[in-house]
């Protein structure tokens, strides 16, 4: 009981501060509207069609990008991990390409797709792909180690090996990669919307700020936060369920 | 212990109860014993006998439920400054980001000892454990036995009134253990230390100690207080085959068996 109170106390404190400070003039209410105003605005927005248009558009970009990134990451991971020698030869290329920020693609993507949602998808794919790929490679390395010990002593057939050794070992890594990719995908979806102008919440935030609709701006920022939290929570929940039996559910966080 | 001998460590009616939501575990029932200055006291007991709990209470890491522990006349409320502890997990008790020399020196810096004096103490301690050459290595570059010697050197350099060792040689191979046991004896005589040595190894306890306390299983009490009256200096080659050694060993062994038996009865 005390523990639950302890957990809420932070939020409570923040909420109180956010409500009281602007009202008392400690913070400029023009720049920091009281929390209640923001929440009211959020409710009002939720009744508008425009808001849901934004939300669904961002969701579509996010989902498509995540799907493509996962597929590409899995395929590339399998290709690099399974072809003997591929890992050694591609190592330097991966190490060089990895630190290149996905935003470097923005101009290229604008040229090709303009502000259509495909721009966002390409950006997401480039950034999120690395997460999936790397986790796949870690997993495949792990399989090597496990394989050496177990499969040989049990003398599995090729198919048996894949089903009973390879897949279960790989699965947690894959889920970690997808989870990390999912949160990066959200960041890049919003980025595309802000910098390229793709339709979505990011653009909504910019529009709100330029038209001085400050409570809306904050409300939409809060929505992106909720989306982020939702994605993290859902991803972890799915991971826990699917991997319930697995001794170590990976604990990596990208951010 | 003669009446005019001063007790460096005095434990009276120590009691420790662990309370959790499910159950109540009385790790230590009632322990009372004294350790005189310059003594080498070994403590043995079956697993689960609360040896670790006793050690944590003695070294001030855990507060007793009731009873008193006095070190050098002062009540123990936290780790006493006059006590140095050598832990079983030597690998985890040395700072991996510090060299051997820095590891040994750190507690001395806390004591605000001057630089020159610190250097002298460190060098002497290293010489005492025969690790002068390893001074600038990192602990993880050394073998297990050497790491434990560093931990011992650190305790020695600290110049404590009491040195407490918690199964220090349990995680080391037999040959190294024999060397380390002799090292302990040498340090004890040369530096006139007061040592409390907790171990599960009966042979080791009888070989090293002047006195062996046998603990019962929980709730722990003192089952037996065995004075080790083996004549002459201890030696790995000869002491262990003396008839007196065997008798004492058997006595301690029987005590432990008795402790284990009552434990299994309680279930």
């Amino acid at each position, binding site marked *: 009981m005390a523990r639950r109170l302890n957990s809420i106390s932070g939020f409570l404190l923040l909420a109180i501060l956010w409500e009281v400070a602007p009202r008392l003039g400690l913070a400029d209410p023009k720049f920091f509207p009281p929390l209640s105003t923001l929440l009211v605005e959020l409710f009002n927005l939720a009744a508008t069609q425009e808001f849901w248009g934004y939300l669904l558009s961002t969701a579509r970009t996010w989902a498509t990008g995540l799907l493509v990134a996962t597929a590409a990451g899995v395929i590339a991971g399998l290709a690099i991990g399974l072809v003997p020698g591929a890992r050694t030869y591609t190592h330097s290329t991966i190490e060089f390409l990895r630190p290149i*920020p996905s*935003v*470097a693609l923005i101009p290229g993507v604008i040229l090709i797709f303009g502000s259509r949602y495909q721009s966002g998808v390409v950006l997401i794919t480039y950034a999120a792909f690395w997460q999936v790929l790397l986790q796949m490679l870690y997993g495949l390395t792990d399989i090597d180690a496990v394989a050496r010990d177990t499969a040989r002593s049990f003398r599995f057939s090729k198919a048996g090996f894949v089903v009973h050794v390879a897949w279960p070992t790989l699965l947690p890594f894959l889920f970690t990669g997808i989870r990390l990719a999912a949160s990066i995908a959200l960041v890049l979806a919003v980025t595309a919307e802000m910098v390229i102008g793709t339709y979505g919440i*990011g653009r909504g935030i910019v529009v709100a700020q330029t038209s001085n609709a400050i409570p809306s701006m904050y409300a939409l920022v809060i929505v992106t936060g909720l989306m982020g939290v939702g994605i993290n929570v859902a991803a972890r929940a799915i991971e826990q369920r699917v991997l319930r039996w697995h001794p170590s559910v990976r604990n990596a966080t990208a*951010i | 212990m003669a009446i005019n001998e001063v007790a460096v460590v005095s434990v009276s009616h120590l009691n420790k109860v662990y309370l959790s939501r499910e159950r109540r575990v009385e790790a230590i029932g009632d322990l009372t014993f004294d350790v005189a200055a310059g003594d080498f006291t070994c403590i043995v007991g079956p697993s689960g006998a609360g040896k670790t709990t006793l050690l944590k209470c003695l070294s001030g*890491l855990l507060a007793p439920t009731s009873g008193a522990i006095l070190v050098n006349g002062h009540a123990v409320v936290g780790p006493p400054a006059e006590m140095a502890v050598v*832990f079983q997990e030597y690998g985890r008790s040395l700072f991996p980001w510090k060299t051997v020399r820095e590891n040994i020196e750190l507690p001395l810096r806390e004591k605000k000892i001057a630089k020159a004096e610190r250097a002298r103490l460190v060098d002497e301690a290293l010489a005492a454990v025969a690790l002068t050459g390893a001074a600038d290595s990192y602990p993880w*570059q050394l073998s297990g036995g050497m790491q434990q010697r560093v931990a011992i050197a650190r305790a020695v350099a600290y110049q404590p009134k009491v040195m407490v060792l918690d199964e220090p040689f349990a995680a080391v191979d037999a040959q190294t253990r024999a060397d380390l046991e002799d090292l302990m004896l040498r340090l004890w005589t040369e530096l006139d230390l007061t040592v409390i040595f907790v171990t599960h190894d009966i042979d080791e306890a009888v070989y090293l100690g002047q006195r062996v306390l046998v603990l019962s299983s929980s709730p722990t009490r003192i089952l037996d207080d065995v004075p080790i009256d083996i004549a002459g200096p201890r030696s790995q080659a000869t002491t262990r085959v003396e008839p007196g050694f065997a008798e004492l060993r058997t006595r301690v062994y029987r005590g432990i068996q008795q402790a284990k038996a009552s434990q299994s009865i309680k279930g």
Partner: protein
Amino acid sequence: MRDTLVRSAGKILHRLAIELALPLGLFGLLLAVSANSTNFYFPPLARVLDRFDALWLGPRFATDVLPSLGRLIAGYTIACLTGIAIGVPLGMFRPLRRAAEPVLEFFRAIPPPALIPVLVMLAGFGDTMKVAVIVTGAIWPILLNTVEGVKGADMVLDETCRTYQIKGMSRLWNFVLPSASPQVVVGMRVGLSIGIILMVISEMFAATTGLGAAIIVFQRSFEIPEMWSGVLMLGLFGFALSVVFRLFERRALKWYYGMRDLERRS
């Protein structure tokens, strides 16, 4: 003696050949394939390299790369110091951590670019805004990893500190911080990547000076080879920084890598 020298030289060359084979191959391929390109959006690689040489190895370095670097360093440094300063007490005191965790979980889930308009509202379009954007994004991995690192301090080492009377600042300096440092550095590496990304995004958004600004301005005025040369510069920028970071990492965590290498070998 000569044999071993020759053999190790051969080994190094062999290693180098493997490492460079694919990148050089891809580069050559790109060079060849694009050589006769008449596509407006994808000019010949040779032209892009020419522009790269003219601009980025020239005046643009000072007018754009250096300001970008400056903002990044400023933002990243603030993020590191603040992240560690907040992370350490949170890692040490569980009630504090329990109270803060839900709040932090929420704030870190906000995609950093979403905060750009808020910061524009508060700080305009100048350097302050850009540095602030970098901080708001880069701080999270540093902070969270600091908390993890501090939390996971070894119990036996903690008991050792207690028995040898190592307390307070001394304990912080000699035990808590070094013990957490490998994890903190992990966070710092992620923070650096995020910092670079936000540096570019903020510059693309408020295109004044900087690498990101230059690229987007080139794109808008359809100076395509120049644009691609900027992208190449950005890639090298990111790569160079990651190399520098790795050198720093190896030096700062010398003890940690030494320990791990030994474990791996055994």
